[in-house]
């Protein structure tokens, strides 16, 4: 589809923030119109990278679980965001349990496994970060 959804969301956000909100009387309606515009900018970013981020996260979490002997056969039913999220939540739950167990264990292997999980969380957070224009 051309234009794509992210382009349409950004165009709509521009209309709301730069044209419609300033034309409204100052107050709740104007502020809400601007905020909806900001949310549309975020939604455009999610449209562009949301599936890719989740596919990467799910594959990396499966690797971490396997490397630490955690049985897992989680597979997303499809690459829709909804199905990827379902798998993502299942994998996150197992990763949280693994991380908590490792945090309580002494020794080099546990420390290295903990560092690998923290590196994943840092990369995941960076990929999920959303950005706004400075007003």
């Amino acid at each position, binding site marked *: 589809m051309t234009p794509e959804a992210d382009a349409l969301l950004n165009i709509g956000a521009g209309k709301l923030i730069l044209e419609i909100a300033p034309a409204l*009387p100052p*107050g*709740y309606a*104007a*502020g*809400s119109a601007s*905020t*909806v515009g*900001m*949310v549309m900018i*975020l939604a455009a970013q*999610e449209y562009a990278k949301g599936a890719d981020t989740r596919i990467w996260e799910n594959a990396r979490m499966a690797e971490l679980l396997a490397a630490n002997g955690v049985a897992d056969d989680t597979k997303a039913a499809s690459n829709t965001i909804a199905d990827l*999220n379902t798998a*993502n*939540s299942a994998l*996150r*739950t197992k*990763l*949280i349990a693994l*991380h*908590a167990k490792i*945090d309580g264990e002494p020794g080099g292997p546990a420390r290295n496994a*903990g*560092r690998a*999980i*923290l*590196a994943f*969380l*840092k990369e*995941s*957070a*960076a990929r*999920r*970060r*959303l950005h*706004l224009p*400075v*007003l």
Partner: protein
Amino acid sequence: MSIADPALAERISAYLKATQGRDTQVTLLERIHGGASRETWRVKLEEGGAAKGFILRRDPPSSLIDTERAVEFSAYRAFHKTAVPVPEALALEQDESWLERPFFLMEEITDAVAASVLQGQPYGDHAARIGAQFFGTLGEIAKLDPAALGLNWDAPARDACWSAELARWEKVIDEDEREPQPIARAAIRWLRNNPPPPAEKISVVHGDYRTGNFLFREGDIAAILDWEMAHLGDPLEDLGWALDPLWAHHNPERPGGMCSRAEAIAHWEKASGLKADPAAMVWWDMFASLKGLAIWISAAAEVHDGTNTDPVNAFAGWYCLAFHNQILADRLQEFAA
């Protein structure tokens, strides 16, 4: 003059007549855009030929944070007698029959504005002056004796401030997460395993002391607002929150968009007479971002569940949550290195 909600205006007039014997006509009623924990309305009255105004803070149908409006009201009332600039608290009404939900009334501060956290440089050439007042006023709040202010709220022991707050916000995450939160869980474990030193003293903690939650005119702070999360605890909790990168107006080198971190802490220490122990601040900085994450998780839940779909909640549940996840994940990896 506009009346955004005629039925609410009628109810306000009826309330003032019944409880205060005032024969008034609401001439303006407009909702102010802002946080989602309370509805805030600007009200103008005509009374005996004179125009008067006040601010109405009403509980929303569903609150982002389950705060007690009596706490906020009593904080305004207590600090109005001090050097901390706050609007005068006028009336607290818990009876839901008047305006459908509990509310309180307070003085309107006119000709002053609040910064948006989205602005790049909201304070312009006044940033350093505002910063001195902002962090100095926070020090003043820390210095004052809660009992002398008449705020006899439950006080934790000096060595239990951190654990009480951590438990409070962990509970929020437990109740409100709608998807597993691995960064929050890792941060909670780190905070529990690396406790800070005991509080130097027990102070009033504002709970949401940051840029955007005060009004200013040119280079002067006119009023500190949004006391709904006030409680007693370690004053470093507020300092960590005020210094959090989310409130830096896109420049982490200028906390609050005002001054450097060193300058901010110097202003706070001078006004409070306390020390911001760097070791303790590592913990309270980390906690601030975890507390923020908990609030944004709640905001996301409100939208997800349809209980409060204010766009502010949608924004916070996406942008702010992703922001604090990254801050926490970066720090966790730094600590483990």
